[in-house]
């Protein structure tokens, strides 16, 4: 609903100061991304302005860069595993928070949110201490546990929201008609939660792919993509990074479009 003003100035409102300012903020938000994409095609790498000599060299170099490709695979593995863990625990957690009164419920609720609220390094450090205590070697597994644990609450929040919207009477009807709890869960509850589950899954996946703080402390010999990039950044700028970043950006945008399409279809 537009705040209404008389004829001519309603046009002025749309393109007035606020609109210009908003466009400016948008420009600020997108500036690095635009630069990134531009310079991934720039022969001179990252120097100078304006960029000259467009080239696909950096992309070519990327394709034959074994370490980065390995890191991509590792990240995908970790992300998928994290989704599995976070949802496998987040779903019952959401159900429990919704339906069960248990001792320490309030504490549980807050505890599960902590990894999202606190600086990631704190959660990473704590889990590192646990690993040391248990004599466990650092590897992708420890990273997976870290991601999964930290992202449980993402699953819980989305699914809880879905539970609120769900028509409770459906479950009651199912039980009334003689279906067992298990059957009701599979045939009624789960289908109703399909959308929140997918949304949570996509969100957890994306957050895991870009996760740095927790991974930093739990990584073993195999790098995830962000940490691989991180290592290279410490050693110096390479325009290859621009190329891989552009690709990550495009994939991310693609994922969002998928998510959006799914959501609007509900």
């Amino acid at each position, binding site marked *: *609903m537009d705040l*209404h*003003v*008389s*004829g001519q100035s309603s046009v002025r409102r749309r393109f007035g100061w606020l609109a210009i300012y908003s466009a400016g903020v948008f420009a600020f938000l997108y500036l690095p991304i635009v630069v990134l994409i531009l310079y991934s095609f720039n022969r001179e790498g990252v120097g100078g302005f304006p960029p000259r000599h467009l080239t696909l060299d950096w992309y070519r170099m990327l394709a034959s860069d074994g370490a980065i490709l390995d890191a991509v695979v590792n990240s995908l593995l970790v992300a998928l595993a994290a989704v599995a863990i976070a949802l496998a625990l987040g779903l019952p957690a959401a159900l429990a928070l919704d339906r069960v009164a248990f001792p320490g419920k309030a504490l549980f609720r807050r505890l599960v949110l902590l990894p999202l609220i606190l600086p990631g390094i704190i959660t990473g450090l704590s889990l590192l201490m646990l690993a040391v205590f248990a004599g466990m070697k650092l590897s992708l597994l420890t990273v997976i546990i870290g991601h999964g644990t930290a992202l449980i609450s993402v699953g819980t929040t989305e699914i809880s929201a879905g539970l609120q919207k769900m028509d409770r009477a459906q479950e009651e009807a199912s039980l009334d008609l003689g279906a067992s709890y298990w059957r009701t869960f599979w045939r009624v509850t789960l289908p109703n939660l399909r959308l929140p589950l997918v949304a949570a899954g996509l969100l957890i996946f994306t957050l895991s792919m870009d996760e740095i703080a927790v991974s930093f402390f739990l990584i073993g010999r195999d790098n995830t993509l962000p940490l691989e990039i991180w290592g290279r950044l410490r050693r110096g700028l390479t325009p290859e990074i621009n190329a891989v970043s552009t690709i990550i950006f495009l994939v991310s945008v693609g994922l969002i479009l998928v998510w959006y399409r799914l959501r609007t279809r509900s």
Partner: protein
Amino acid sequence: MSIQNRDTHLTQPQEAPKAPEKAAAGEPLLQIRSVAKSFGARAVLRDVSLDVAPGEFLTILGESGSGKTTLLRLIAGFERPDTGEIWMGGERLDRLPPHRRQVNTVFQQYALFPHLSVFENVAYGLRAQGVAKAEIAQRVEQALAMVKMSAYAGAAPSKLSGGQQQRVALARALVNRPLLLLLDEPLSALDANLRRQMQGELKMLQREVGITFLFVTHDQDEAMALSDRIALLRAGELEQIAAPREIYNRPSTAYTAQFVGQTNLLRAEVVDGVARWGAFSWPCEGRPGPATFSLRPEHIRLASPADDQQTVRFLATIGQQTFCGDTDLIEISCADGRVLRVRTPSRRILEGQCAFAFSASDAVRLHDAEES
């Protein structure tokens, strides 16, 4: 339930309340001229023209989708007409933004500001216009007293019931002494008894302060009870505008006859001063040819020996009889199979064949030969 403490009502320098039959008496307060409004492909209002007299209680009546709320929003300023003009007090109203119009609205969901107290809500408009603090306090107290909400001045709106919120919304609008008050179905969220009570209070309030009320509703009983005039809106066009009795007793179209009250529609033929409908006939002046008549169920009664020449008498079989407390609504079948609905004061249950009658003058000729 009457308004107590009539002595504490506002004495505002308003014009004396009038209840004109026609808008022609004096200069109209509001003039809507050929206004049309569409949303996308949907035409909500088509060519509506209307004059509102100062001090009158005018109801815009119509079913959902008829455009009545849109019309109100055009006057309030939340929408702009696609074509046409709105004038108030000799100035173009539709060119002004809502906050500069001397029009106030009572919203359907009250729209009280949740973060302000009742007092602050009512004072809002006065503060926005820079009225002096002392005067604000005085006027707000008077307004709250007028709607009997003085005790709640410090309360938060969320703590009030629906009826109480509505009173506060009313006070908030009236305290600004607008030239015109718009009410968008303000009573529709209340239950039946509270609604009737508020109707009475609204009517008396309007008489007291003398401000012109423009009231929107889909409830025809409400419209008839409250209004000086009713404007019936149908699919974005004005069907008929007249005082309640006029609209009820002399509907101009079949739609009006059926929307305001119930009726029997008789599709008759007028030849040589006589109207014929099946086996029935009665004297009728006017243009020969096909004509539709509206006959209200309460005008058909059980025949009695005192009926005179102008009465149409007939036999009919009793069908469905519905008990309505003070009356019975009976479906009767005439000899040729036509069905009429009759409303009689309640008595015993009837059955079999009875003799009925109606006066020729009660069959009102409608101005259109439209299908109902």
